[in-house]
């Protein structure tokens, strides 16, 4: 902060027009105030008003730009004094540095004329780069001194992509500073208004869009949960599968948009269960062939319901094929190996993982370690090993919240279901998955398993 003030005291003062300076400073303060008022809820990102501070570099030189930058602490917003002054000083220093680079590379201070035009672009771009650089460095220093950046733990992997996106977009805004400067001579104050208006509208629309996205997500989640109320034990299943599927997709390095699609598909993967009669879903004894056939229909049913949600596109296939197996014994189409769409392979692993680690009417929840061992055992036959390993890595790093053990109001344990689950536990202990996976040894077709979802992959929801 002190340095900001000293910077404003030492020169150079050449070409400093006080009237222009005052106008720009006022403009900057107004733009900042508007942007904080309008854009609440938009996190990160530099507001379009930074274009004004770069225009100041051209119009009133480094010192003027520093004054303009410092004026930002006068803007109307909820912020304490220290933070305001720091922000002002940060803007001032960045603008001052940018101004000097601009001068050094041959830029002239003042309203650019027609004949300046191609030549002025190079020093201006350099100024923009300097501005971003100084700004980032100052923020980094602040974060470091506040200890906000933790360097411990595997969680703090450096996410450079969003940061670069923010920097690029803010540089795009700042390039427009040149536009403001260019028309300043002709029409004065109107120029920045004309430049900033579409930008503010764009930001406002983005904010609206964020709200709508949130609303969309909330609605989707609520409706999925409403569907789940049919079965006491599967509460929260869709949200957890969505989470696990997203973890796998992220771990595989998929782009954010695709991760989101797979998340939604994970949320919706069992929506077709609604078409299956409740008594079949909740049946604890052996299923008849017809009942099993009814269950096998649910991925297709689900696909039919959500088919019209066009943005899901390839993730739709994930809903349709989440019960396919690599060895081709899955349903509904019996696809083999890499014929199964990638999203389906992701969701299938996530689905079974959550199924194993949560309590069902016929058995207790497995521990995460046991579930992982089981998934690994079935990798290659039922699951894509890549997906399994991705899930393991993601769970190791981020942990996994198993659902609270739910006791249904009626109390379903202890009766015949308990016997069965005991038998099952014994079988799985000796058979390492074979008993749990009747389909793996080929007799599932003749003898459907005990319950709709006793089996990882083969029959689970």
């Amino acid at each position, binding site marked *: 902060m002190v340095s900001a003030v000293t910077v404003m005291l030492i020169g150079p003062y050449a070409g400093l027009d006080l009237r222009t300076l005052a106008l720009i400073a006022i403009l900057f303060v107004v733009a900042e105030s508007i942007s904080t008022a309008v854009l609440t809820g938009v996190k990160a990102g530099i507001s379009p008003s930074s274009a004004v501070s770069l225009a100041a570099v051209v119009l009133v030189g480094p010192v003027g730009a520093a004054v303009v930058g410092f004026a930002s602490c006068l803007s109307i917003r909820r912020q304490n004094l220290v933070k305001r002054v720091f922000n002002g000083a940060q803007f001032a220093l960045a603008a001052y540095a940018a101004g000097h680079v601009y001068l050094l590379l041959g830029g002239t201070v003042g309203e650019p004329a027609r004949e300046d*035009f191609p030549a002025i672009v190079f020093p201006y771009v350099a100024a923009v780069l300097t501005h971003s650089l100084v700004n980032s460095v100052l923020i980094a220093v602040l974060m470091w001194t506040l200890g906000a950046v933790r360097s411990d733990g595997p969680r703090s992997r450096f996410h450079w992509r969003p940061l670069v996106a923010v920097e690029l977009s803010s540089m795009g805004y700042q390039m427009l500073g040149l536009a403001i400067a260019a028309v300043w001579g002709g*029409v*004065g104050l109107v120029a920045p208004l*004309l430049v900033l208006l*579409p930008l503010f*509208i764009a930001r406002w*629309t983005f904010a609206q869009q964020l709200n709508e996205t949130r609303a969309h997500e909330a*609605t989707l989640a*609520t409706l999925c949960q409403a569907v789940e109320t049919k079965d006491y034990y599967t509460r929260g299943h869709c949200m957890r599968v969505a989470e696990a599927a997203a973890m796998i997709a992220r771990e595989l390095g998929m782009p954010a948009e695709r991760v989101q699609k797979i998340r939604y598909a994970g949320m919706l993967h069992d929506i077709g269960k609604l078409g299956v009669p409740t008594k079949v879903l909740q049946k604890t004894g052996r299923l008849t062939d017809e009942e099993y056939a009814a269950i096998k229909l649910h991925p297709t049913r689900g696909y039919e319901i959500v088919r019209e949600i066009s943005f899901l596109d390839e993730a739709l296939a994930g809903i349709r094929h989440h019960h396919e197996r690599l060895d081709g014994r899955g349903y509904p189409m019996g696809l083999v190996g890499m014929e199964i769409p990638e999203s389906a392979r992701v969701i299938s692993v996530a689905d079974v993982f959550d199924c194993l680690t949560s309590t069902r009417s016929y058995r207790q929840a497995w521990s995460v370690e046991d579930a992982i061992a089981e998934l690994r055992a079935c990798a290659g036959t039922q699951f894509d090993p890549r997906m399994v390993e991705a899930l393991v890595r993601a769970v190791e790093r981020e942990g996994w919240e198993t659902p609270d053990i739910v006791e249904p109001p009626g109390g379903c344990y202890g009766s015949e279901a308990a016997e069965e689950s005991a038998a099952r536990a014994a079988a799985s202990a000796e058979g390492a998955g074979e008993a749990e996976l009747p389909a793996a040894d080929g007799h599932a077709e003749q003898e459907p398993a005990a319950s709709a979802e006793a089996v990882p992959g083969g029959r689970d929801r």
Partner: protein
Amino acid sequence: MMTQRQSDGSRAVGPALSGPEGGALSHQRPRGPLWRTSRPVRAVLVSSVGAVALAALVWTAATGFVEPYVALSFCLVIAAGELARITLPGHREAAPIASAGAISYAFLLTLGSGPLHHSAWQVVAVVALGVALGELPHIAVGRSPRVEDVARRVLVAALLAVAFRPMAEQWDLVGPSVTATLLMAALVLVTWALDALVAAVLRAERLRTRLGVAVRDELRAQFATGAAIGSSGVLIALACTVTGLAGLLVFTAPLLVSQVAFRRHAEVRRTYLETVRALSRVTEVGGYVENGHSRRVSHLAHGIACELGLAEAELLELEYAALMHDIGQLSLREPIAGGATVLASPREQRRIAELGSAIIRETGVLDNVAEMVRRQCEPLAGDGDEGVPPLGSRIIKVANAFDDLVGENGDEERRAAVLGRLRMDTDSEYDPRVVDALATVLSRL
């Protein structure tokens, strides 16, 4: 692309699926000869704008283009903007960059070296040519534009050019000045209002709603885009005097940002509606209600609401509520017979409505929708001390009862009988205004 996909979708499942956003696409294209169109305003607008554009083209071609390079550059920018047109919520087509390019060409006074002399005719010709060029690829792949929106875009440029070019000559405006800027801003504002009015007339004609409501909807819907387009248009015209033609590219950048934002916003809105539409079918798949029931109710409710003059935002909420009005049945252990809630006992109906409303309220963002769903089965006077249920609830009640009683393939006679039955109950159960509106909607089918 989006337009096409949606229209395909709604056509595949039948004409009964239009709503405020996906709305009316199946009725949109004229069938039969032009003079028998059900939408005369649209036909008049399109043909007159087409005629003017053609006349301008012929005239300009005959007299020769003044400053052909400038004309060509603007023509190309307009074509590119038209190529990148977007569909905004409510099926409004817009091409912000093309529009801004057209506005700035109408306003262009000089490129720094001497004044420009293109006439208003030439402006219309260049804009029409650019729009046609930009639409060609779309048409080639089968994504025809909405002709009336294209016509409106050309109309705006034509109005501005006709108003501004003579004025500029008369008052000797040659460079950027405060007078010129103010004049441009005022003209843009007036033209924007006129354009919104035209759009509102078209909308009222398409949805059969009231003009006043449509005007308010259009003004609100086009405020953001209009402001962005108008300010960019003026800015480009002014800036090109300093920077030359390079300014045309540089100064479309802020608008490009806005366009991306508009597009993504429209996508989210569309996705939201698609999701609710798709998920409203879970009750059908679960065997709780008859196939297509939610959509038919939503379609009817939309028609009734347009007839009663609901605003766009209310229409959207009503559509959500109508689509999800039976969602409470999901909480029932077993489906009620036939799924027709109108035949269930009042207590049962009340419980379903309340369960559904609770589910919707859970989202935290659709409180009005939840309220409509909660009170959908109350009698006309409401029950308890809450007073009359909201209009949306009354509409859903009528639409739901009608569809439950008529069923999927009701013929003319059955519809009339059901309508008569609903009419008999208008003193206690159903809102007479809503039933009348339903009759009007049905008479058009």
